[in-house]
């Protein structure tokens, strides 16, 4: 597949179809998942941490867990993430945690499926890896 959607992208997307305040986080109906490795850069992951909603990461992982068990290659496991992210006594993040975050945010891709608005159930299609968030004229 040429185009793929990362969980990092899902992390800051929402739906505000007219008539709902509850548009975040979007539910994920994953029909097809792919794993694509990218170079691990701890500095980049550390820079991402203040920008992401960690609870949404945990939620997203839950949403795709089942599809991952069928679609991910056998050597790749969906990482086990802690309830919260914290720095250690040296005021640093644990390197293993950073690696897990890297895999979850950047290397696991939803190729086909839908993002679903929690408030209205409106489904935004992910076609060939590109999420289509365009609102219809009666939703604006």
């Amino acid at each position, binding site marked *: 597949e040429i185009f793929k959607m990362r969980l990092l992208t899902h992390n800051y997307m929402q739906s505000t179809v007219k008539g709902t305040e509850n548009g975040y986080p979007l539910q994920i109906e994953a029909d097809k998942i792919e794993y*694509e490795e990218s170079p691990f850069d701890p500095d980049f992951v550390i820079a991402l941490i203040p920008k992401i909603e960690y609870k949404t990461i945990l939620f997203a992982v839950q949403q795709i867990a089942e599809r991952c068990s069928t679609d991910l290659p056998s050597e790749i496991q969906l990482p086990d993430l802690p309830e919260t992210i914290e720095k250690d006594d040296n005021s640093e993040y644990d390197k293993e945690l950073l690696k897990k975050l890297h895999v979850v945010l950047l290397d696991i891709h939803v190729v086909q499926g839908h993002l679903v608005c929690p408030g209205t159930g409106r489904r935004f299609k992910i076609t060939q890896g*590109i999420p289509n968030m365009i609102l219809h*004229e009666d939703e604006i």
Partner: protein
Amino acid sequence: HVHLDFQRPELESVLSLHDIKIGTDCLDIPLPRHDSEYPHKRPFLILSFDYDYAKRKFNLCDEDEVLSDDISRLSIIDKNRPTVASVLSRVTLIRSALELFGVGISIDTCATDVGMLWKGIAGKEILSRCMEETSSWSIQIHTLGTKYKREEQNEMRDRFAFLNFPGPVKIKDPTNEFLLIREVELDEKGTPLYPRYPTKDILNEENDSRPPLGVYFGRILGGIRDWRGNNRLERLSLKKRSYLGPTSMDAELSLIMTNLGKVQKNSFCFEPFVGTGSILLTCGLRGGYCCGADLDIRVLRGRNENENIISNFQQFNLVRPDLVRSDNSLYSRHYLTDKPMYDAIITDPPYGIRAGARKSGSKLEHPRPVSEDQRHDHIAQTQVYHVSDVMADLLNVAARNLVIGGRLVYIIPSMTDFDAKTDLPRHDCLKLVNVCYQPLQVELGRRVVTMEKVVEYDPLQKDKYLSSVWVNGQQSAEKCARIRERLMEAVKLKPGYEEKARYRKQKRVETREAKKRAKREAKGIISLNTNATGSD
């Protein structure tokens, strides 16, 4: 040179990546004869650093190291101890840099100035770095196109023989390459205004006796005389990208824009009108993490599996960018906006000149509701997206979603009657860093605008922000919005327009008639106009 206006801003932006500010951390020294009547911009700049500062800031011992030709090094700035060359070579519009030993208004005064170098502590250190017996050397001469015979050139070299470099002379790739520049006046095309040999082999005595504008002598930094061949366009082969479209940004301009935007390794870059992704690709080449959005799904998908944004990134071995189909006029409806995400937003927004601007929604006040079973296959309606709104929304999205210190760099087409002070869109949270003008045609040019976020965004003031985007209110917005019509009007005023329009119309009529005839003949109907001779 098309990008004259961009040189200084691009240099300043790249220097600020290293916390270097001209005027504070270094000084811009006037060139020799800077007060002469010569009208054109000169191609040299002298920056003077306090020597102790330079030793702390730069790795001065490795300045002869040849700049890497590894593409990925474009994105790596060793901030801890860069060489001067590694800092400056990132600037697209700089061809090379010299460690300047001396300068003067003639070869003699320059040589005298170089001789003074021995007298200071700093000068002694600088010279002793060139005095290894194993270091080969040569002196190149750059005369800006003025012709000098070999003997004359050697005479010039001899004036600097007192330096007494101990190592062997080596013409090609020496350890230390020294450069003697004899600057003369040039015309707009870059050829000498007062050539010594205007006619072949006949010396023009008057021109020959003219003094130079300046003479400079120094050591080439980065091991290469002209950086343009190295980690630049030619090597990058940006022009050979697999996916290009009619609006793809010319490669040099996008390299400059990413410098103006201070894109570096791990910069979070966003392009709200990504199109074919040419600017986004350059962000990726500079090590940025790239996200692109566009309303048009066809352009996001690309032409086919080998010609699309992703294949362009793959061609350069870059991590894939994130792509979303979304509408920038509704940015805050698609994305969370409570935490500023982006370090850089660099884009060429649609103006409706070559690519019509559209946004979601219907022009009807109350569009027909879409029933739930139709929802899935419904194709969203779009409406005209006025340029003035494109710009207002862009600034607001940038103000809200850039981190403090993050940069917005965008292009705005403008006619020559554009006043950058009053006609540019503005925002309370963004400060204008620079505006660079690039002329394209007689009436039309484009301006590359760089803004920086300096104040945090207050969502409660959204309406106030949007209503104060245009200083002269509708007037400035209109100037922007009507560019397409004004271009058409300007074209009609061109000489020969009427004739060409008539010719084109005639051609269209002829083509139509030919098609009709072909259709009729295919159906077996005999044309009554045929000049038939003989019997049928």
